[in-house]
């Protein structure tokens, strides 16, 4: 494979394009609503109408507005059909020929779409994720070619530094700096790992990227491997995402066949292989040292850092770990230049961020917005506010490591620093909207239960502290807790945060701390004054014995 081959594939693909395309969303959400049958019937309706030469029915990745799925977009008509059933197919095919249709549509130029800026999701819902040619037609693998042929590894690192990209996994560590550290670490063998263990409940951005545009992640990883001097990559992906796994497997196979992965990529001396590692249901494996233990086939328990993976990672070798969205940002940055990327977003948070918008909100789905977009734009303008006349009470970001931002702070711009100031975190991109029906103490308990169940059990503060914090939250909800119990809860939050071994424990108190900060009255309403009298509301004096095993 050389550049000419790549361009040839692109041209052939573009030349084969038909006058009309019907893009059918084939991501997991729409598939579970029957998208497969929709595509089959569209194929059939097109054939029945004898339009095979004019109409292409293309299965694509996520088309973002998940709540209205299955989605079908007709171009150049620019019609977006929603909640499509297989029976609707003939009617849609009639409509693209100029006829009338009663199939429900929504405005593809509505705020939900118009306020988005696509970098990571540019190919999502456009290219066919199961055909590498489709990705190449969208300028795929050009960046890799350019990097391999025209740039020294240190210049690639330099470009990443200039772009200002920060890790999209949650903590926001500068990506270029991380690449530079791995590149400088001595070692004959180095690894690149893509963290696709999207464990935050309420987050599905990485799943969508992998299902919709797997090659962009592979290309990003290959560029990273070249920059840091690695020849082996792993993608650690959750077993809960079978579609993402099969599409990745297919993408790796196709890329290998074309010589875009494997030995001598683009006929250069650079070799890079990618293997999949399937997670097995452990949230803690999103933590990088635990993830590496898991890749090595061990119990996914974290270890103290330093040494950091960049110095001593997988099997003791320098290892670069970035998450899916970070890698997906790399090809566009290389293609369009770091200055272009650095021109988007805010001073300290560059580029865009993908969010999975869900919960008590009208439009649920996937959005990509420039960093610095106010939360209110996301939840009100794009999300359409709370459904059924409810009032938005809070927005939860960062999953079990994040916090609840109350409605009065909705003018906050989304960037790493602003969310941090409110006791939340950017996180990987889960954004759950809560309305006035939501009990915030129960939300705190929900997340604490999550952390308690997901604690690996290695360090004492996390293993036992989450159990006691969960018990105290439970006691508060049962109206059996006293102000002394509240004080104990707050003290434990501080202790678990300060003393836990890894990020899971260190951030486990965050949802509780943030709800205590903004919704303290909801806690206080549930307290009994002290131990001297019987508890209020006839709650019984004693709690039931808990059995941990």
């Amino acid at each position: 494979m050389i550049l000419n081959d790549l361009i040839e594939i692109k041209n052939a693909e573009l030349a084969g394009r038909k006058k009309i395309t019907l893009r059918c969303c084939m991501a997991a959400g729409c598939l579970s609503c029957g998208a497969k049958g929709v595509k089959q019937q569209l194929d059939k309706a097109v054939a029945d109408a004898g339009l095979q030469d004019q109409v292409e029915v293309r299965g694509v990745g996520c088309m973002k507005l998940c709540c209205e799925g299955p989605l079908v977009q007709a171009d150049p008509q620019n019609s977006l059909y929603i909640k499509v059933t297989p029976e609707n197919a003939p009617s849609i095919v009639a409509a693209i020929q100029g006829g009338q249709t009663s199939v429900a549509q929504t405005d593809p130029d509505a705020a939900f779409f118009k306020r988005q800026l696509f970098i990571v999701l540019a190919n999502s819902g456009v290219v066919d994720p199961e055909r590498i040619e489709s990705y190449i037609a969208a300028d795929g693998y050009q960046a890799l070619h350019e990097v391999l042929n025209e740039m020294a590894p240190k210049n690639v690192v330099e470009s990443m530094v200039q772009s200002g990209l920060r890790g999209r996994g949650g903590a926001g560590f500068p990506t270029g700096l991380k690449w530079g550290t791995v590149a400088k670490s001595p070692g004959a063998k180095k690894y690149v790992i893509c963290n696709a263990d999207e464990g935050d409940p309420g987050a599905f951005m990485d799943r969508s990227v992998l299902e919709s545009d797997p090659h962009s992640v592979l290309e990003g990883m290959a560029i990273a491997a070249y920059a840091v001097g690695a020849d082996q990559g792993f993608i650690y992906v959750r077993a809960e995402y079978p579609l993402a796994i099969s599409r990745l497997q297919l993408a790796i196979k196709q890329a290998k066949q074309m010589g875009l992965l494997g030995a001598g990529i683009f006929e250069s001396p650079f070799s890079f292989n990618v293997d999949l590692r399937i997670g097995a249901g452990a949230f803690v494996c999103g933590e990088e040292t635990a993830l590496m233990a898991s890749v090595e086939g061990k119990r996914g328990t974290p270890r103290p850092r330093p040494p950091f993976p960049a110095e001593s990672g997988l099997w003791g070798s320098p290892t670069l770990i970035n998450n899916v969205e970070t890698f997906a940002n790399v090809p566009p940055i290389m293609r369009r230049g770091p200055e272009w990327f650095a021109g988007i977003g805010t001073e300290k948070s560059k580029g865009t961020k993908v969010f999975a918008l869900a919960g008590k909100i009208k439009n649920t789905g996937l959005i990509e917005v420039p960093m610095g977009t106010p939360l209110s734009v996301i939840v009100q303008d794009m999300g359409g506010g709370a459904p059924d006349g409810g009032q938005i009470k809070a927005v939860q970001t960062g999953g079990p490591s994040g916090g609840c931002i109350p409605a009065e702070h909705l003018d906050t711009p989304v960037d790493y620093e602003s969310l941090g100031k409110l006791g939340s975190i950017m996180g990987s991109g889960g954004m759950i909207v809560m309305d006035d029906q939501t009990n915030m103490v129960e939300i705190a308990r929900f997340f604490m239960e999550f952390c308690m169940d997901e604690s690996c059990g290695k360090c004492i503060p996390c293993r036992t502290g989450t159990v006691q914090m969960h018990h105290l939250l439970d006691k508060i909800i049962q109206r059996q807790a006293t102000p002394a119990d509240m004080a104990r809860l707050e003290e434990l939050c501080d202790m678990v945060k300060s003393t836990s071994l890894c990020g899971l424990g260190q951030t486990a108190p965050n949802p509780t701390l943030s709800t205590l900060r903004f919704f303290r009255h909801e806690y206080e309403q549930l307290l009994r004054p002290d131990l001297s009298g019987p508890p209020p509301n006839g709650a019984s004096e004693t709690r039931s014995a808990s059995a941990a095993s």
Partner: protein
Amino acid sequence: MAAKTLTINGLQISAEEGATILQAADEANVKIPTLCHLDGVYDVGACRLCLVEVAGVPKLLPACTTKVVEGMEVKTDTERLRKYRRMTLELLLAERNHVCAVCVANGHCELQAFAWSLGIDHVRYDYCFPKWSVDNTHRLFGMDHNRCILCTRCVRVCWHIEGAGTKNVSGRGGHARIISDLNQPWGEADSCTSCGKCVQACPTGALFHKGSTVAEMERDRSKLEFIVTAREKKQWIASD
């Protein structure tokens, strides 16, 4: 080997390059509490009792896995650290059934000793009272999960000193427990060589010699130290 100078609690000391804060402190006779560290086996930084404050570092650092750095200013015994250590111990005491009065290790237990030395007179958290079993199937030893604090010393000596790989942790979180082989009764674990290193390593009454009664179970760490020194330094005669 180059020496590093640092201060621990204001005291100027020097330590070998590559030494941990815990080792440096130990040589300077500054005691840092720890439940998972055991001389001779690698450290895991799990119990968090040995966390110390280092000037200029916002996070608390585990003394057992943090290497000394020139000019480091370490504090091992601040009010904040003492408070966290007390809480850690209280959490442990509430986690399983540490009924000291009827424990074989009463009076010879590291958990119990740290509790009184840190001034714990009661546990402020509700006791969990979980149901855990006792494995008495081994000919020589017993394992009482009620007393286990999951420090994994037994696992580490079994794998890295004895090399048998009998013991491991199964499950996770609060459900984690020490197993033998394929979660078999200890007496049926084929790989166990009955060397007893795990029993010597245990900080509490979780692992014990059969036949010891309450308050009788003393540990003999010298055997572990002997074999580690023997292997590392080729010194096969005990120094005293």
